[in-house]
């Protein structure tokens, strides 16, 4: 995640803004889907033909292109399984996330 900012984040305390008015957030507190996903897509590299159907259908755009196949960015994948359903080569399998 980029930390570049043209201007510093708003500081309500410095601006004299009470902390019980409009709810605002001034620090990045990401809760990525990878933290709560229950199923994980696994790509079989031998079957992948790089047709990009998974890339096209992924609702969170977490499919990333590798030189020889398409892979999944597991930080942002929410485990919906659409890629596995749509893959014409049946190259993607949904597996359960292990506990912990």
């Amino acid at each position, binding site marked *: 995640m980029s930390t570049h*900012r*043209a*201007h*510093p*984040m*708003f500081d*309500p305390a410095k*601006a004299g*803004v*009470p*902390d*019980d*008015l*409009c*709810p*605002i*957030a*001034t620090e990045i*507190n990401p*809760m990525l889907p990878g933290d709560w996903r229950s199923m994980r897509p696994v790509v079989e590299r031998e079957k992948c033909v790089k047709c990009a159907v998974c890339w096209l259908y992924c609702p969170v755009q977490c499919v990333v292109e590798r030189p020889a196949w398409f892979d999944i960015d597991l930080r942002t994948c929410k485990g919906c399984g659409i890629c596995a359903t749509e893959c014409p080569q049946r190259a993607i399998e949904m597996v359960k996330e292990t506990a912990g």
Partner: protein
Amino acid sequence: MSAAILEKGRIASNEPHHIVCEGNEAAALAVAMARPDMVSVYPITPQSSLVEHLAKLVADGRMDAEIVDAEGEHSVLSVLQGAALAGGRTFTATCGPGLAFMFEPYFRTSGMRLPIVMALVTRDGITPQSVWGGHQDAMTVREVGWVQMYCESVQEVLDTTIMAFRIAEHHDVMLPVNICLDGNYLSYGAARVTLPEQADVDAFLGEKDVNWHAALDPLRPMAVDPLTGGAGGKGPATFVRYRKGQCRGMQNALRVIADVHAEYGERFGRRFAPLVEEYRMDDAEFALMTLGSMSGAAKDAVDEARDAGKRVGIVKIKTFSPFPVEAVVAALRRIKALGVVDRSVGFRWNCGPMFQETLGALYRLGRQIPAASFIGGLAGADITVEHFHRVIEQTEALLRGAAPSEPIWINEND
């Protein structure tokens, strides 16, 4: 459009400037004088002519505001949320079904502490189908955190609309405000009004400063309205803190509304009771409680009853939300019977909503007062002076007999 008002190049003078206009036009003129940056509207009876007046003011170059004809009320208020977060002074108007369609952003507006001003041209709830006035729409949303002030006259609509911006934008309040004007009776009722001078309104409202606390501003990066509560993030405490803040703002509004009315009276010479008006209450033995435009007929009836020797007064509520508990208790502290006239229905308690809230205030008084709930003026029905004479008789009877357990329906046989 009335002639001279807000015309370009009109020379300011010390002469009072009077026009005759309807409540909807009075509200539009007041909005123009408040110089909003953006007005977003969707027409709906009986608010439509207010929107038409605003559109004409903009089209004629008398009001320098963006006017957004959104595709529905949900978008109307959402558009204004963005404008307010960008630092704009904002206004809209709606009623009844339009308010219902607006409900999701309506709730969010008070939670985001955006000082958006809205004329609520009150209309009865449908169904039964009707397009006429009544307070059911405003009463339905009385727990959504908006300040709600009910007007009695066209003049009060104009003056309260100007004051509403001051109240909403006060740093101790920062809440959206409804000016409630009775559909039909005030929206279309024509009366003489005195217009303030633009320069005086400018001085009264001062510099606007509406997004000091939350903004869509690249120079002050922040995330507005993020997820709070629940198990994620910082837990329930965050949500509770903001909710408590809303309640604090509402309580502050009681003081600010009184202060702003006092200052307005001094600057413009027109004084209105900010929270509760006590009319002929000094030695009153029993009282009526009224809300909105019905109060005029009630005052006439009380004057006549006074001439006939009855010691009756009126407690008129102007600010219904936040409910002015202390002022109501103070007004009722000496009376022995009370008749509360509502222009809407409280389905859950089988009485008028204002009656029910007043019972809560009477508990603080610590004294049982026989009280009756009168429901009248539904769907545009008139509550006449004759009706109020019946209300006075029936309330006076409470001094001797038991209070009725059911509401008394004023227009039942009309």
